[in-house]
């Protein structure tokens, strides 16, 4: 499996273990943060660095909060539960490891750790996270298209709001581009229709006005008035 790099959080109360894991992980191209206990780990995970961690390497036996409690809180937190957790364990802790996997841990790494095994298990977890991140992004963009459909019905749709989704080179991107095109076409037709209606209204008004004028000027009384006006003009001109 091709290597990928990520941001790893190492949680272990033992300094030698933290040093060794940092050395191996940085040598494998990863960014590493460390925590000495479970409480510190959760503070980091929920800090401004939230969203930047790709994998957690978690020891079980620690002061403050132990590995079980950290795992439980990570899995219960909507912002964190998607981060893969690899338990760091001694070989005689298999019962503990099984319990952690049942609680949602992705994998385990026995101590003392083997660098090749660390690389393999970390890469597998990183690949899983990246797939999950892509899936979440896809679902978010499907949501944008669904929102757009609702806005078209409410006549509040802005075609440019789908530009991000339309830039994709997959089926969803094509759907978004078709949606934008259709929405723009509908809008253009509406505009043309409005212009035609406006033009018709003007013509209708003009026709109504002409009719009103004709109704007055074609009466006998109006024609008699016109005739008298002409007679008076002849008299004035003759005088």
């Amino acid at each position: 499996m091709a290597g990928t790099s990520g941001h790893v959080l190492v949680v272990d109360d033992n300094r030698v273990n933290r040093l060794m894991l940092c050395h191996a992980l940085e040598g494998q191209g990863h960014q590493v943060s460390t925590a000495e206990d479970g409480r510190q780990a959760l503070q980091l995970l929920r800090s401004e660095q939230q969203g930047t961690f790709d994998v957690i390497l978690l020891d079980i036996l620690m002061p403050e909060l132990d590995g079980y409690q950290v795992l439980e809180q990570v899995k219960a937190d909507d912002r964190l539960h998607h981060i893969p957790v690899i338990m760091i364990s001694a070989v005689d802790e298999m019962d503990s490891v099984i319990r952690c996997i049942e609680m949602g841990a992705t994998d385990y790494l026995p101590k003392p750790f083997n660098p090749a095994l660390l690389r393999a298990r970390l890469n597998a977890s990183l690949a899983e996270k990246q797939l999950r991140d892509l899936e979440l992004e896809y679902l978010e963009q499907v949501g944008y298209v669904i929102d757009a459909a609702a806005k078209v019905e409410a006549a509040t749709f802005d075609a440019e709001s789908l530009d991000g989704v339309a830039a994709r080179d997959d089926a969803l991107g094509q759907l978004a581009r078709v949606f934008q095109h259709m929405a723009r076409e509908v809008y253009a037709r509406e505009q043309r229709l409005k212009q035609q209606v406006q033009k018709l209204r003007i013509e209708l008004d003009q026709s109504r006005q002409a009719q009103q004028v004709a109704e007055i000027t074609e009466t006998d009384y109006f024609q008699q008035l016109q005739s008298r006006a002409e007679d008076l003009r002849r008299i004035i001109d003759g005088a």
Partner: protein
Amino acid sequence: MTSPSAVDRHVLDALLESVGGDQEFLGELLDTYFEDAPQLITAMQAAVAAGEAEELRRAAHSLKSTSATFGAMDLSAKCKDLEMMAKSGALEGAEAQIAVVATEYERAKAELETVQRGS
């Protein structure tokens, strides 16, 4: 008659290989171990004095783990005994076992320092 070695050299060699042959880094790891191990032994003694089985268990577990990392297998085994004692909650005999751990640590430290000087 020479006493049995306190450090399994094969484990130490494997550790050096796992850190890419970086002698300087191995030296840093050993220095860290030499700083932390006495603190863990002190923590064990304090835990027994306070009747804190869980604290004793954590300290014994930690020293067990890193001692095995450096090939101090006898020391690791004695720490495991202490850890199991603490896990069961029975602290009778823990004080004596901590003394055994402390003695074994000094033996392992002496040998590791010899290795460190030789590298």
